[in-house]
C-alpha cells in the first residue's frame, strides 16, 4: 500500500517499487571473489606506500645487490643470485606486509564486518584477498623480471615452473601469516610488526642474502623460516632448475599452521 507522498519521490524504474517484489539472489561465487580480488588489487596498487613496498624497495634492493659485491662467488653473476631473492621479497611485501596492514585497517574500520554481511561473506572476503595478492605478485614478477633482464639476468629456463609454484606457495604462507597478525592485534601493531619483520626477514631471514652469508647461528634457523625456505628454493630453481622439495614442504607447513591459527584466533571486529 502506498501512502500519500510516498510515491512522489519514486520516479518509474528507480528500483524502489521493485524492492518489494522479486527475491534477491547473490551473484555467482566466482564473480563475487573475482570482483573482490579486483577491487582489493586496485586499492593496493593505488596506495603509494604499498607501491613503494611492493615495487620500489625490491627494485632498489635488486640494483643495490647488483652493484655491490655482497653476492660475489655464489653463482655465475651477481644479478643471477640476486633476482630469485628479490622475487621472494616481493611475495613477502605483498602477501605479508601489504595485505596484513590493509586487512588490519579494514578490520579497524569495520570493513570486514560490513562485507561479511553482504553476499561476499567471510570466505569470499579471504578468497578475494588471496586473489588480489596473486594479481599484484604477478605484476611484481613482470616488473622485476623486466628490470632484471635489463641488468643481464639469465635464469635457467627449467627454473620457471618450480619458481612460479614456489612463489605461489610462499604467497600462501605469507598471506596466512599476514592474516594471523592482522586478525589478532591492533592495526598499529600490525603495521609495526609486519614492517619490522619485513626488514628483519628481508635482511637476515635468508630471503635476499643466502644463508651461507649469514652468521652461523642464523644459518641453522633460516632454513625453517618461510623467508629462508622461499629464498633458498627460488635460488635452487632459477640458478639450477631444481625443485627444493624440503623447502616447499616447509612453506606448506607454515601455510597450514598459520592458516589454522588465523581461523582459530582471527577477530572480525
Amino acid at each position, binding site marked *: *500500500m*502506498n*501512502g500519500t507522498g*510516498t510515491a512522489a*519521490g*519514486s520516479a518509474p*524504474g*528507480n*528500483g*524502489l*517499487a*521493485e*524492492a*518489494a*517484489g*522479486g*527475491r*534477491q*539472489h*547473490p*551473484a555467482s*561465487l566466482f*564473480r*563475487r571473489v573475482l*570482483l*573482490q580480488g579486483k*577491487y582489493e588489487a586496485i*586499492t593496493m596498487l*593505488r*596506495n603509494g606506500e604499498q607501491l613503494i613496498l611492493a615495487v620500489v624497495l625490491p627494485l632498489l634492493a635488486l640494483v643495490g645487490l647488483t652493484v655491490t659485491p655482497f653476492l660475489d662467488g655464489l653463482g655465475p653473476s651477481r644479478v643471477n643470485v640476486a633476482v630469485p631473492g628479490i622475487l621472494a621479497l616481493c611475495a613477502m611485501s605483498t602477501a605479508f606486509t601489504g595485505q596484513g596492514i590493509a586487512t588490519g*585497517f*579494514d578490520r579497524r*574500520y*569495520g*570493513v570486514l*564486518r*560490513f*562485507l*561479511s*554481511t*553482504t*553476499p*561476499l*561473506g567471510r570466505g*569470499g572476503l579471504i578468497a578475494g584477498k588471496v586473489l588480489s595478492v596473486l594479481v599484484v605478485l604477478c605484476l611484481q614478477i613482470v616488473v622485476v623480471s623486466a628490470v632484471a633482464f635489463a641488468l643481464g639476468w639469465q635464469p635457467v629456463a627449467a627454473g620457471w615452473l618450480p619458481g612460479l609454484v614456489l612463489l605461489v606457495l610462499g604467497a600462501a604462507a605469507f598471506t596466512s601469516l599476514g592474516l594471523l597478525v592482522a586478525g589478532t592485534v591492533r592495526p598499529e601493531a600490525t603495521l609495526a610488526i609486519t614492517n619490522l619483520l619485513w626488514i628483519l626477514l628481508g635482511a637476515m631471514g635468508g630471503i635476499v642474502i643466502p644463508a651461507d652469508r649469514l652468521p652461523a647461528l642464523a644459518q641453522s634457523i633460516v632454513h625453517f623460516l618461510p623467508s629462508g625456505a622461499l629464498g633458498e628454493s627460488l635460488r635452487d630453481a632459477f640458478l639450477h632448475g631444481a625443485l627444493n622439495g624440503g623447502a616447499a614442504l616447509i612453506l606448506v607447513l607454515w601455510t597450514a599452521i598459520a592458516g589454522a591459527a588465523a581461523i582459530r584466533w582471527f577477530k*572480525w*571486529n
Partner: protein
Amino acid sequence: MRSPQSPVLSINGLVKDVGPLASLDGKMLRVVSDVSLIAGRGEVTALLGPNGAGKTTTLECAQGLQRRSGGTISLLGEDPASAGADLRSRVGVMLQDGGLPPSAKPVPLLRHIAGLYANPWPVEDLVERLGIDSFSRTGVRRLSGGQKQRLTLAAALVGRPEVLFLDEPSAGLDPQSRALVFDLISELRSSGMGIILTTHLMDDAQRLADYVYIIDGGRNVAEGTVQQLLQREPAVDSGAEHVRTLVFEAQPGLDLSAVLPAAIAVAETRAGSYSVTGALTPGHLAALAAWWEAKGIMPAAMSLQARSLEDVFLDISGKDIR
C-alpha cells in the same frame, strides 16, 4: 509479544556471553540475558534502549556477525548463524561504525558492492536518491558525518534487501540528511521492506517506529506501539503530570537561558531543535512568545507534549546514569 502477519525476524530468548574477560577474573560477561522480538514485513521495528543495553549485540546476532550463546533466531525463516550467501543477499545491514574503507570513493564503492548481487538497485538511482551525487568522487575519509551516514545507508540498500537493519541510523545526521533518510525509511516501509533499527533517541522511535521494544540490561523491559507506550501509567507519581515539554525548531545556536526561570530546563537537542521541559504555565509560554517576537524568530515547528517516549523510558528504566 505481538504476532505480525508476515514476520521477517523473530528472536526468542536470546542470550549472549562474551569473554572470558580478564577484568572479571576470566569469567564470561552476559551482555544479553533474555531478548525476544518479532519484526514484520512493511514495518519499522525499533529497539530502544540506553547505551550498553544490548541493542547492537542483539542486532549482530541476528545478522550472523556474532554467535549467540542461547535462544533462537529466525531471519526470513533461516538461522543467520549458519546461513549462506542466499540469505545474506536478501538482508541489508547498516553498521553503527560505517564499515566503509576510508580510501574508497563513494560511487566506485557502491558499484563494487552492487556487483555482489544478481539484481542490485541501479547505483545511479540510489546515488541520486540519497544525494550522494554531490560527493560521488570524494574519499570516504573526507566526508561529513551526514554524508558518510547516507553512503552507509546506500551500501545497505544497494542489494534491494527484504530486511534492512539500521544501527543508530540518525547518528551524526544534520537536519537535512535526517529528513532525507527518514523519508526514505518511511518509503521503504511502504514498499514492503521489513526494517529493524536501534536507537537511543526517543524522537527517532517516535517518528519512525510502528512497534517499539525497549531493552535495558540485556532484556526486554517494555514493548508496544508508540501510542501504547505513551499511554502507560507513570510508575511513580512525582507531580510528573504537570510536567510538559515544548519542542520547537528554529535557527541553531539560540541562547534561551535568560528567557525562562531556572526551574525550566532548556536544551538544544540537536542543531536548531529546542526542548523546553518543566511545569510550564501559560505565563512561560507568553514569555517565550514575547522573546521570539522581540528577536524576530518564527519557529518552523512547535509541539507541546504532556508526556514523551523519553518520559516513559525513564519511568521504566530509571533515571540513574549508568
